[in-house]
């Protein structure tokens, strides 16, 4: 049994010591002496969140299949341990062998949301790795970033040695082989970076130079050397069936967010909602073969002992073999296995399935209309109509459901006061549908929960040029919704939750920021900002100080409609979807024109160049 990095005294004094001891079921054990490459895989948030992430489980499994690589894990120490590590000068360690992260060859960090950026600095800091890539030496691991936020890696450019743009399945073997051979020849860190930048999907930020115009926009973005690629095409695993998938998932001791088997049934989404980054960057939509999924499900349930399996995808209803897969999974019910079906479109089929796998009285149905009026839903290309929502809710109420959740966004481009007011009105119509059921047939009151978030424009979406709103305006819009809700007939059956706006403002800056916002990040971390996605730790005051002290204007990044010919910080990345398609979609949005989904018609987004998935299924 490994000796732990932390003493009994420390472990007994912190919350949930199980976060730091490793030893989980299906953990991979190797002798570090036997491998050529040691890799620390990091999710920069607390253990319970990080352990729930599928991408890391896929890569952990894939890396460890190589005999010459040992991939270990590291998560953000919670604030209590953070303080102890700092005070007692204990270096951050991996869970598997409890070794210092600094001893690894690579530190890979998955970057899933903007509000984890200070936690990335925490990981580097606690690992005693210089925060700035250009201050690292041969003693330090190569720091790699991956995940959706790397589609605009620029705010983090100073802190990473390289970014892997796109899906992880494809290029890591080549990257490891290159590293191994260069190390064997005594190659330096700098030589490796110069060489690795030629691998597909690899972006080495230090090899590019950015210059700015007087108005603050980017003047040029150029490779420093002729052999450094000027654009980086995202990596994509086209065959999702004959590929790696972890059959033996790690089983944590403490309850984590995804305390279940997660089965990714497909990647990408055919719907083309204009606000949705995932719907653009994961194109083309690719399905996994149903027989592969059945095998995976069975093996993962057997090897983990989990009592629940959840299907994962952006829109499960679009998976072509869904009925067959679900029928197979229902067979596990007698072994006490629950099935969780998020992101299902509500219709007769899904309600029938859900009534078989869930407790109707406890579960709630979720609709995401995203906008209150049909006009605004057309702007964002969200195909959901009021009729579909009311019919779905009607069917659900008739089937015994009483709880409905409705998700909306405020601050979408072109939003008017009417769009806002229609949000509670739509909720009221849903409630009315419930009370149309004769009193003796229904089961008390219904519960309609409205949640709104504030829209943050993301790179590689048709809204990447759009302006955001100031914080006060977001809150004003939430108040309008709240006031209107009080006017509704069924207001006692309605509940309204809205998010804080401070975080939205920061998300906006870091989603579309350039290299110059990195210094704010560092300043904020130095001031003590950490776990910003946790409202109990988020400190907006410190963030505002950091912006001020760095002389970086939030408004420049958030309150400006970008020109269509402006060089955007992420323009050097090619995600398959072309800029001309995004421009066309931005124009269609302003004209309130709907674009059909990929299965109905090819809209020429550019993803056909990957020659697979939905692009080949329904050719016109």
């Amino acid at each position, binding site marked *: 049994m490994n000796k732990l990095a932390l003493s009994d005294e420390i*472990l007994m004094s912190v919350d949930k010591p*199980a976060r730091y001891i490793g*030893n989980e079921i299906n953990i991979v054990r190797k002798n570090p002496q036997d491998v050529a490459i040691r890799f620390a895989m990091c999710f920069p948030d607390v253990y319970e969140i990080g352990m729930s992430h599928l991408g890391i489980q896929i890569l952990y499994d894939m890396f460890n299949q190589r005999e010459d690589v040992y991939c270990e894990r590291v998560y953000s120490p919670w604030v209590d341990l953070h303080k102890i590590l700092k005070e007692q000068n204990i270096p951050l360690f991996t869970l598997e062998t409890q070794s210092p992260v600094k001893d690894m060859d690579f530190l890979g960090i998955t970057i899933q949301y903007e509000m984890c950026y200070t936690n990335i600095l925490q990981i580097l800091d606690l690992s005693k790795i210089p925060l700035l890539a250009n201050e690292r030496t041969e003693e330090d691991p190569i720091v790699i970033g991956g995940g959706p936020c790397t589609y605009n890696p620029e705010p983090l450019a100073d802190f990473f040695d390289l970014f892997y743009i796109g899906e992880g399945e494809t290029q890591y073997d080549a990257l490891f082989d290159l590293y191994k051979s260069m190390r064997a020849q005594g190659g330096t860190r700098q030589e490796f970076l110069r060489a690795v930048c030629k691998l597909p999907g690899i972006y080495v930020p230090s090899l590019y130079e950015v210059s700015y115009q007087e108005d603050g926009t980017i003047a040029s973005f150029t490779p420093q050397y002729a052999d450094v690629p000027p654009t980086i095409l995202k990596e994509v695993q086209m065959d999702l069936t004959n590929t790696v998938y972890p059959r033996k998932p790690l089983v944590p001791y403490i309850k984590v967010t995804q305390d279940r088997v997660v089965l990714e049934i497909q990647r990408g989404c055919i719907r083309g909602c204009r606000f949705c980054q995932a719907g653009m960057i994961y194109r083309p939509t690719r399905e996994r073969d149903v027989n592969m999924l059945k095998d995976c499900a069975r093996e993962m*349930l057997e090897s983990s002992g989990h009592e629940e399996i959840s299907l994962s995808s952006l829109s499960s209803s679009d998976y072509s073999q869904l009925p067959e897969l679900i029928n197979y999974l229902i067979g596990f019910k007698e072994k006490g296995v629950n099935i969780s079906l998020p992101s299902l479109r509500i219709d007769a089929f899904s309600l029938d399935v859900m009534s078989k796998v869930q*407790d109707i009285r406890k579960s709630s149905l979720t609709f995401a209309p995203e906008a209150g009026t049909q006009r605004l839903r057309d702007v964002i290309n969200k195909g959901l109509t009021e009729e579909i929502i009311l019919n779905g809710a009607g069917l659900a109420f008739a089937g015994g459901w009483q709880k409905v959740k409705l998700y909306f966004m405020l601050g979408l481009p072109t939003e008017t006061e009417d769009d806002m007011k229609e949000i509670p009105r739509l909720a009221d119509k849903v409630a009315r549908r419930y009370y149309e059921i004769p009193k003796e047939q229904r089961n008390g009151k219904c519960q309609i929960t409205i949640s709104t978030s504030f829209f943050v424009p993301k790179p590689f979406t048709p809204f990447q040029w759009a302006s955001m709103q100031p914080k006060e305006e977001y809150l004003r819009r939430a108040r309008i919704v709240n006031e209107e809700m009080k006017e509704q007939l069924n207001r006692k059956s309605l509940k309204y939750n809205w998010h804080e706006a401070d975080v939205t403002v920061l998300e906006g800056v870091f989603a579309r920021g350039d290299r110059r916002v990195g210094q704010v990040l560092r300043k904020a971390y130095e001031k003590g900002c950490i776990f910003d996605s946790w409202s109990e730790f988020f400190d907006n005051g410190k963030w505002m100080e950091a912006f001020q002290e760095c002389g970086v204007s939030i408004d420049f990044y958030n309150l400006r409609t970008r020109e269509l010919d402006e060089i955007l910080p992420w323009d050097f990345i090619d995600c398959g979807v072309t800029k001309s398609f995004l421009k066309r979609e931005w124009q269609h949005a302003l004209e309130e024109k709907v674009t059909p989904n990929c299965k109905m018609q090819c809209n020429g987004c550019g993803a056909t160049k990957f020659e697979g998935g939905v692009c080949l299924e329904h050719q016109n």
Partner: protein
Amino acid sequence: MNIRIKFQKYGVMKFIGHLDMMRYFQKAIRRADIDIAYSEGYSPHQIMSFAAPLGVGVTSDGEYLDIEVKSSKSSKASMQSLNETMAEGITILEYRKLPDTAKTSMSLVAAADYLVYQKPGYCPLADTSTQLQAKVEAFYEGQSHIYITKQTKKREIEMDLKPLIYEMKAINLNQKQTLARIGVKNPQILAACQEETTEDTPALFLKLCTGSADNVKPELVLEAFCRFHGISYEPSGSYIHRLEVYARADDIPVKGEQERQVYADNLNHQRELCQQQGIEFPKFLALGELGIDI
């Protein structure tokens, strides 16, 4: 069919709390393909109960959980399936069938044995086990009451530990025979035992009242002991290891009038046998002894 499982917990697993251990076993039982019974209703759960929660940081050689199964392989085969899927630090020691009307281990728990000793770097309880024994006698035999104040959620209560400490003595951890006699199976304690050395590693052996009505944690006794002898006490300064959990020997562990009568008759018979042979009838029975191997 009711099954009582005995397991040990050591190493890093001591940091896994009671509720997480329950979740751990729910999943382990699925992985081992034990044919466990589920409760009725829309969200069925495994029929499983634990004997006595173990504190975080405490290791044990005598943890029990009861499960209900629809069918079962032999004890040996079931233990093998379970042990193949255990995390490092948990080992299944017994898998025994209980009578159909058996009371749960939780309702039977009456006592538990513990081994308590100081970690290196903390104020030792005594230099040798002989000296420790003398201190134990002064503390335990020498006092008719051992009053302590116990902090509960609502208030402070004064309680007398003396009647709740069933046994207290000093031992030397460097004597293999002693460790075997008190039933130590913890691999780390056994590995540290160096028979050939003359060094004496003193430890306290405690048999304490345990259960839902009266419950004494070994930490409470240790704290009182340290205070009595002017030894500085630190909560994280000692190793605590549970050895075994017991039911009262005269507590009838089955339900149903007929079954109870049969058990009571057998109990009397055993008692008479003991009397005839001049052996003292045991006051406690390890929870595992109430089941039989299948």
